[in-house]
């Protein structure tokens, strides 16, 4: 089956794969092309077309030109805000999830199954439902309108995913390894640091990719719990999509979409290989 058999069937495979790949790429191609067409050109023809004149300045406007109310700084400051929330929240939730997953899978303590079960249920709790309770929590801890508040939300919510995947990954670690280390006198953290963490590459890549994209792309909390100058990049993108008081600016909007998606796209491109490998180990048990 996995040897090269006769040519026609392989030709068919390549044909099907290329067709599907083309379909998957089509939306990206359309957005990239639109990012290089002027708003007027798009309005006159259609959303799909080859640029008549290369409108490179769409990118300049998207990056540092267009206005969200009185702030005419393009998407740039919002990218920074998103990074300030996404990077710490991703790192903290991944690290805490790894420790929790390691504890639940390899140390076993009383009530671990219960708490683990509840935490994983968090994957399924719709986020619209959590908006008001979070408002109340943020008020009570005094973190409303701070980026720290958003980091807190994304860390706590992210634990559901990171704990689940890390735990599923670590169950496969042979218990003898841990037992031997404990006999040598190594404690909880030492074993984590010396034995578990070096093994964790693939699964950490999965959780980092997952957390990063989800937090980067989040909108609802991002606009509710920040004020003007701290809003995330998704808010700036929404401001660009046609409002009641504006004609569609599809060209600049496309350029902004591309810029805003670059960090997550890069992460997938660079980590895609490890993503599959990590999933092999993490999600299947």
């Amino acid at each position, binding site marked *: *089956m996995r040897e090269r058999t006769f040519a026609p069937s392989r030709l068919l495979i390549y044909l099907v794969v290329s067709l599907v790949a083309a379909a998957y790429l089509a939306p990206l191609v*359309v957005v990239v092309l639109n990012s290089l067409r002027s708003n007027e050109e798009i309005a006159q023809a259609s959303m799909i077309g080859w640029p008549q004149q290369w409108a490179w300045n769409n990118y300049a406007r998207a990056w540092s030109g267009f206005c969200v109310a009185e702030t005419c700084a393009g998407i740039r400051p919002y990218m920074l805000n998103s990074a300030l929330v996404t990077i710490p929240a991703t790192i903290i939730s991944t690290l805490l999830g790894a420790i929790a997953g390691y504890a639940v899978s390899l140390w076993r303590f009383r009530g671990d199954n219960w708490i683990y079960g509840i935490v994983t249920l968090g994957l399924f709790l719709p986020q619209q439902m959590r908006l008001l309770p979070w408002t109340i929590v943020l008020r009570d801890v005094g973190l409303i309108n701070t980026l720290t508040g958003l980091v807190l939300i994304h860390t706590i919510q992210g634990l559901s995913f990171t704990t689940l995947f890390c735990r599923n990954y670590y169950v496969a670690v042979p218990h003898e390894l841990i037992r031997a280390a404990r006999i040598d006198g190594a404690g909880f953290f030492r074993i984590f640091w010396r034995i578990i963490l070096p093994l964790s590459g693939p699964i950490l890549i999965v959780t980092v990719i997952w957390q990063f994209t989800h937090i980067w792309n989040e909108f609802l909390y991002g606009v509710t719990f920040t004020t003007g100058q701290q809003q995330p990049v998704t808010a700036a993108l929404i401001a660009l999509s046609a409002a009641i008081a504006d004609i569609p600016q599809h060209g600049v909007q496309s350029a902004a979409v591309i810029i805003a998606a670059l960090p997550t796209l890069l992460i997938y491109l660079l980590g895609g290989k490890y993503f599959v490998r990590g999933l092999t180990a993490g*999600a*299947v048990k």
Partner: protein
Amino acid sequence: MTDVVATAARPATPDWVRRLPEYLMIWVPLLLSAAHLVTFSLWTIWISFTPSTLVPVTGWVGLRNYSAVLVSRNWQIAFDNLLLFGSAFVLLSLMTGLLLAILLDQRIRGENVLRSIFLYPLAVSFVVTGTVWSWLLNPGIGIQKLVHDLGWTSFRFDWLVDRDMAIWTIVIAAIWQSSGFAMALFLAGLRSVDADIIKAAQIDGAGPIRIYRRVVLPTLWPITITVVVVQLQFAISAFDLVRALTNGGPGIATQLPALVVYDLMFQRSQLGRGAAAAVLMLLILLAVLLPYAAWRYVRQRRTTHA
């Protein structure tokens, strides 16, 4: 090891004090996470029995919020749509994911590039996916217009504005976005099939299709269940995508429960009813998750007893 010596030198320190840091690192995050889930759910359940409108208030209205939601046209349409969208999306993304995984498993050239192509939609936000597909699928400015401009003027692809077909545009966009995840999981499963079993089957003279059907696919069952649960979860909570693509339209033809919850809670300022709809949504989720949990439990017992 130095710290073994160190701890041995201080026998007076009780065990739990020595292990306090690790207890804190394990329990604080886990408890916070579990506590927020439990309190938030209980809070929503409680609100669903109050007459809350703009902000939460105390009071008791019994099941009135529930009956108001259940008889509303919006909820009924949303529920029907969820059944259709949920089953169509899960089934189709399962098939797409499996097909892509099998194709990529044929030791083809350019596997890295292809895998990236199938995975990249996962990196894009739902809002962007919805917006871009609303461009492509809008007959006035998208694919239909393109084909018309190319000369085939009788071509029709207007599902987005067709009440009966609009829900399928959401299926298309959702599959585009998330079938890469199914593919990755299936590929992971295919790669972990024991090569010796396949060798043995080949020696027995089985053809490739027969090997897939008899040997490889049966091992994918656990993964399939995982994929189904993850995708169903996605279907039930689909929100940003639908809002950007159809916003529930044309008319109210593509309402979905998550949209109804958000709409009631925040746009219509009927917090009590919105909470009731959210609780109904949780019940739907439980209806999916409980059988899954039971299945896992049974499977785990079987493996430990075997």
